[in-house]
């Protein structure tokens, strides 16, 4: 009897084994299980993967709830990833700063703007949480040493509600200082290779490589990078994924949106690859909205990456006019969202041969901090002209229609209505800003691949779903690696809100799980 059974079992194993051999793509093993771990090198209460806005918010939040033995890892030789080089801008209504500027705004309007840009594909509950809870998170940042410096309006927002610190690291660094002061551990050059699951499918740790040496070459596939020493970290209460997006990875982004060609420029740092998201897909983690990858147009075509033109161009869209030099005419509402504007720019820029021109006068330029404007000029992203004729000559502008368009634009500003493209205008220091007074400043916007709206599907508490529809216990995700908050297109300055609000929620969720595990034990 036993022999019979054994023979049957052997046959089944043989069949199964040989069929596995037939799968050519299975050179990568499926999920890593606890029994595959030779020995746990280190043990932590929780591990946060990624050190940007979301990662630091999650870590500080869980530490504030009492967790002590926590580790943050980042694969790069520096911390903060894309967050550190971003504009550091937070969109929120009802802040004291907004009130000081005399702006009437409310979260329902913020929600409307967000859903409109997202084509209603966003998860409405998550949008509501961002718009309402975002104020508490905003104040939490202030309490942790973050200082808001600039106030402006970003495309797609119906009112000025964008608060900026200057540069993103001015948000991540104060948070990281607090983390260090409270005894949290932070390590660079540690890359997560695999999540480790127990036999019930719960995440209990990870396989990493320490002393990882990232290769600064966008065409290099990170899967080929074998540097580093393998180690196994146990994470008792859970793992928080805050690994960011993959807009800097020419191969992976093209997989999800074939229109994004490898040679297109990006704002992202080199580390923004699809390494982690590919691993998560392989682990049957559920994804949402993967085809929506944003191209943003607040960068200069005259610069390599994010560059120095950002501040001047932001002001230009609020207080200036964008036009096609060949026709001399405007072609889009300058303050519409990034998708609408980038599409419009692509439609007229003849694959980079006919960049649009964004023009403002000295009054518009004065809304930019002088050193930011000077940096833009030094970097070749901002051009200064004493007369309009000089500009017209330099860029070969179609003169008659342009001058007519300029007159029309100025009249729209003063009446507050733009019948052609529906642009709205806001006063600056109680005055509408037209384009009249020399010197004149011109920028040439060039859209660059920027942000991944899609990603890991989670609950509102950042618990991760698997493709089977069940939650993966012990696994949390926040920040750009997640999807569903922004839908079709993300509004500028909503990302920081997403990262901080949901980063905190992830941190609280892990802390809760830790407490409940202690109670059970």
């Amino acid at each position, binding site marked *: 009897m036993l022999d019979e059974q054994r023979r049957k079992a052997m046959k089944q194993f043989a069949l199964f084994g040989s069929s596995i051999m037939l799968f050519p793509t299975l050179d990568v093993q499926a999920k890593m299980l606890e029994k595959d771990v030779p020995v746990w090198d280190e043990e932590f209460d929780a591990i946060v993967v990624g050190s940007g806005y979301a990662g630091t918010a999650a870590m500080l939040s869980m530490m504030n709830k009492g967790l002590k033995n926590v580790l943050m890892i980042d694969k790069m030789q520096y911390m903060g990833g894309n967050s550190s080089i971003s504009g550091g801008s937070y969109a929120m209504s009802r802040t004291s700063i907004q009130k000081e500027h005399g702006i009437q705004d409310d979260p329902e309007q913020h929600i409307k703007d967000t859903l409109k840009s997202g084509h209603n594909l966003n998860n409405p509950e998550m949008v509501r949480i961002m718009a309402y809870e975002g104020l508490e998170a905003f104040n939490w940042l202030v309490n942790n040493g973050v200082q808001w410096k600039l106030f402006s309006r970003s495309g797609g927002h119906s009112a000025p509600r964008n608060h900026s610190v200057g540069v993103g*690291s001015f948000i991540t660094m104060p948070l990281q200082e607090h983390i260090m002061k409270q005894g949290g551990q932070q390590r660079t050059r540690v890359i997560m290779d695999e999540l480790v699951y127990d036999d019930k499918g719960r995440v209990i740790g990870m396989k990493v490589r320490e002393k990882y040496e990232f290769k600064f070459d966008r065409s290099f596939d990170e899967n080929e990078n074998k540097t580093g020493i393998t180690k196994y970290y146990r994470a008792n209460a859970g793992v928080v994924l805050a690994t960011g997006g993959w807009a800097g990875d020419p191969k992976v982004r093209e997989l999800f949106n074939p229109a994004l060609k490898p040679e297109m420029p990006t704002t992202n740092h080199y580390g923004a690859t699809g390494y982690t998201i590919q691993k998560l897909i392989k682990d049957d983690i559920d994804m949402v909205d993967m085809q929506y990858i944003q191209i943003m147009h607040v960068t200069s075509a005259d610069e390599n990456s994010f560059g120095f033109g950002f501040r001047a161009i932001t002001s230009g869209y609020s207080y200036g006019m964008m036009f096609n030099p060949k026709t001399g005419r405007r072609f889009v509402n300058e303050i519409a969202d990034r998708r609408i504007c980038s599409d419009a720019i692509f439609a007229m820029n003849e694959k980079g041969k006919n960049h649009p021109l964004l023009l403002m006068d000295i009054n518009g330029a004065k809304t930019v901090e002088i050193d930011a404007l000077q940096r833009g000029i030094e970097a070749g992203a901002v051009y200064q002209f004493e007369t309009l004729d000089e500009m017209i000559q330099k860029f070969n502008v179609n003169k008659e229609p342009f001058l007519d368009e300029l007159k029309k634009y100025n009249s729209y500003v003063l009446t507050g209505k733009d019948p052609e493209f529906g642009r709205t205008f806001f006063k600056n220091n109680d005055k509408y800003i037209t384009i009249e007074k020399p010197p004149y400043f011109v920028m040439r916007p060039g859209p660059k691949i920027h942000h991944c709206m899609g990603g890991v599907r989670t609950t509102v508490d950042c618990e991760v779903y698997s493709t089977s529809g069940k939650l993966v216990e012990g696994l949390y995700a926040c920040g750009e690696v997640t999807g569903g908050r922004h839908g079709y297109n993300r509004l500028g300055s909503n990302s920081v809100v997403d990262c901080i609000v949901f980063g905190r929620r992830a941190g609280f969720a892990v802390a809760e799980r830790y407490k409940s595990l202690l109670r059970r034990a």
Partner: protein
Amino acid sequence: MKTLTMRIIISFFVLGLIFLWASDVPQNTATSNNHQYAIDGIHKKLSLGCKECHRELKQEDYSSAMKETCLTCHENYEKLKERTGHLGHNNNVHASPHFTNIDCDICHKSHKPSQNLCLQCHGQQTMKQLIVK
């Protein structure tokens, strides 16, 4: 007498040549190694061997992740910031608003050419001209 004088003159001349050649023998300078990289040259002049920088026990474990070792001599990031202060606010590579206290080897390599991390995003002329040692 004529031949004796000639002999003396010639021998002095030859001795002079020998002396010149001897004094020109190259000493153990920084240029007499097979790398052209500036950072390697300075470290070699100070007779820094492999073990001075690489603290791993086995040679096959050697990695360039050794910020602590660099800082043993180069003290701290504040001092480095002062050292490159003459580049001005926009180009001070050690005073980046984005990253602080980053690993030295992102830019400074001993065994291959160094690179400028800031240049990946900031391409102004003054940044392009910087020589990374």
